[in-house]
């Protein structure tokens, strides 16, 4: 039997529907991932008329972890300050509590235990790193800086976005006006935002210059202080990404059933009680999903620190992506790929942990 082309085309529909997506992802994700892995274990050298790649094993990683690039990636170690101990104690308590409750729940499996152990170790390691480099005399490396950007940035964005969404879901006028206005920052290119904030944060010429002079800070330069520079980066990041969380949470809040809220409010429950007992359980799954998306994206932060401070003062505001990019610019392709791989590992562990141990329980609780 001879099949015409269109018959064949129809019969292959099942495959042809998914094939383009799979092929394109294989070619431009798996393939680069493998090449990057190869670069990460080699040394790139320009030679006459081309380049040469020499296999050097894990030397690139060794350099980052214990070698000459350690100060850049991990930071410079110093005695742990009191807030370092505080942070450490809080994290240990939190981890111990969640592990204990998992083991006591009686539903623990070997895979679950191993997964949780990996998560616990990763968080502990990051905490120790943060506590030992944050003190006086120490210096945060690009890994810690990225983790701070993610943790502080996403927390601020989530709380602001949630607050705004709650306000906007009240019975108020001009709701669509606020919605469009609050959505605006998402449309500006991150590079543009970075320059805009550089203009705004300019202490001598910016719009607030008069204010700074008034309170005697006119001569202060935020870009020369590590923490103020980081703060400006995080403010820019929050300004840009709050709308994303806001718009999704607003839709979730507006989508919840009015009856429950009404019933609770007739019973005399306060705003806070209504939020805690009725609204929050309803929107928690959406909230956790949106936080995961944000965490995934936040790990890739690069435009803001690059434009605002160029990673400086020193390396104080350098994120991992910027670190990798700076290595690439210096033609250290191997080192660049090694940093990128470390970023991939850290963000995968954090995101997978969040997905498995925060998001999934929240979803299953609702059903």
């Amino acid at each position: 039997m001879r099949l015409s082309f269109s018959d064949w085309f129809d019969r292959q529909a099942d495959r042809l529907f998914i094939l383009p997506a799979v092929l394109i992802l294989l070619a431009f994700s798996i393939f680069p991932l493998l090449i990057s892995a190869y670069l990460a274990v080699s040394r790139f050298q320009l030679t006459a008329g081309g380049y040469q790649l020499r296999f050097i094993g894990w030397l690139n990683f060794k350099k980052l972890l214990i070698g000459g690039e350690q100060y850049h990636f991990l930071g410079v170690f110093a005695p742990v300050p009191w807030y370092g101990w505080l942070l450490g104690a809080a994290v240990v308590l939190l981890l111990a509590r969640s592990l204990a409750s998992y083991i006591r729940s009686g539903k623990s499996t070997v895979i679950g235990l191993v997964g949780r152990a990996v998560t616990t170790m990763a968080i502990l390691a990051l905490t120790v790193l943060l506590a030992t480099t944050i003190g006086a005399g120490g210096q945060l490396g690009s890994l810690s800086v990225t983790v701070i950007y993610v943790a502080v940035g996403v927390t601020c964005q989530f709380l602001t976005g949630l607050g705004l969404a709650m306000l906007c879901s009240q019975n108020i006028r001009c709701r669509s006006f606020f919605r469009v206005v609050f959505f605006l920052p998402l449309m500006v290119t991150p590079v543009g935002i970075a320059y805009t904030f550089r203009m705004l944060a300019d202490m001598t010429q910016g719009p607030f210059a008069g204010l700074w002079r008034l309170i005697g800070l006119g001569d202060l330069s935020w870009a020369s202080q590590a923490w103020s520079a980081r703060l400006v980066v995080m403010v820019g990041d929050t300004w840009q990404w709050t709308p994303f969380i806001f718009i999704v949470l607003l839709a979730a809040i507006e989508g919840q059933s009015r009856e429950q809220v009404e019933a609770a409010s007739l019973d005399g429950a306060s705003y806070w009680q209504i939020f805690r007992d009725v609204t929050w359980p309803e929107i928690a799954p959406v909230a956790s999903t949106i936080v995961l998306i944000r965490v995934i994206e936040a790990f890739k932060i690069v435009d803001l620190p690059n434009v605002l401070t160029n990673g400086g003062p020193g390396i104080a505001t350098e994120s991992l992506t910027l670190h990798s990019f700076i290595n690439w610019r210096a033609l250290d392709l191997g080192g660049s790929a090694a940093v990128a791989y470390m970023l991939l590992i850290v963000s995968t562990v954090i995101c997978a942990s969040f997905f498995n141990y925060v998001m999934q329980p929240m979803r299953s609780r609702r059903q």
Partner: protein
Amino acid sequence: MSRWRGLFESRRFGELAPIPKFICYALLALWSIIVLFPLYWVLVTSFKEPVDVAYPPKFLPFIDFQPSLHAWHYIFVDLGNDTFRPYANSLIVASVSTLLAVLIGSMAAYALSRIEYKPKLGSIIGFILLLALAIVAVVHWQVDWRLAVIVAVVLFLLLLRAFGRYFRRHLGNGDILFWIISQRILPPVVAAIPIYVMFQKVGLLDTHLALIITYTTVNLPIVVWLMYDFFAAIPRDLEESAQLDGASRYRIFVGIVLPLAKPGLIAASLLVLILAWNEYLLALFLSTAKAQTIPLLVAAQNATRGPQWWYMSVLIIIMIAPVVVLTIILQKYIARGLLLGAVKG
């Protein structure tokens, strides 16, 4: 005490008491100012002469300073084609890659929500191993890349024929979906260098095509993520009756499913369009002159003389303008479209 409580409690349901209402409006207005002020400052700066940017800050055109169109003149007339070309590049790259990502992504999302796939674990591992081997062959032993790819693919197909039936373990749709979404975790910088090398090898560096392909890939997972739940929520009766009438899957997809999923499609397109329009890092790697996009031009205004704020402001404004217009037109779809994806995502 009870009098005070009366102030705060709602009278009619949904109606706020005066004081909370005032606080509510005050906070909303405050955030509006936080959002709008930077944009206002950019707009004002675009009309300033360089001397007006100095201290003391000048806020109001015509009152504080005499607005001038010199920056607009410079960007549109002096730079002329050097502005319009990146702008056109951005338009082409962003719109074509969005179209492709939405088309390919929604096809995949639809297929995953309707058809059961069972990729064999063994063949996947075999494929990745062969791919790794091909890369090592090209990079290390200087084999021609075309030859390596062809040999790898042929070898893969032959091995699949020979040993395919021995593989038992297979993955499900959930795994494929997770795999696609997990591509988003990949930091662009991991992929940027290999993609750069790859396009260099095939001579596509600094072309529209390179950027279009890259943006399509990067944004594909978002489309799949958002659209999967949309398709899953669409009832299947219509499709089944169409199938009985003899319509092919393509017909059903284009004629029935896509129109039903319109809000999701619009939201996903808008989001992907914004991401592609604003993308900077990959463009920096992949385009130098001909295919330069507009975010690169913004960054380029940071010249050796220091940042040229007035030129930069003009560029930022002409970059935001089309997206703002689009968003205002489509705003009612955005929340709905994003939500369905996020609820079950």
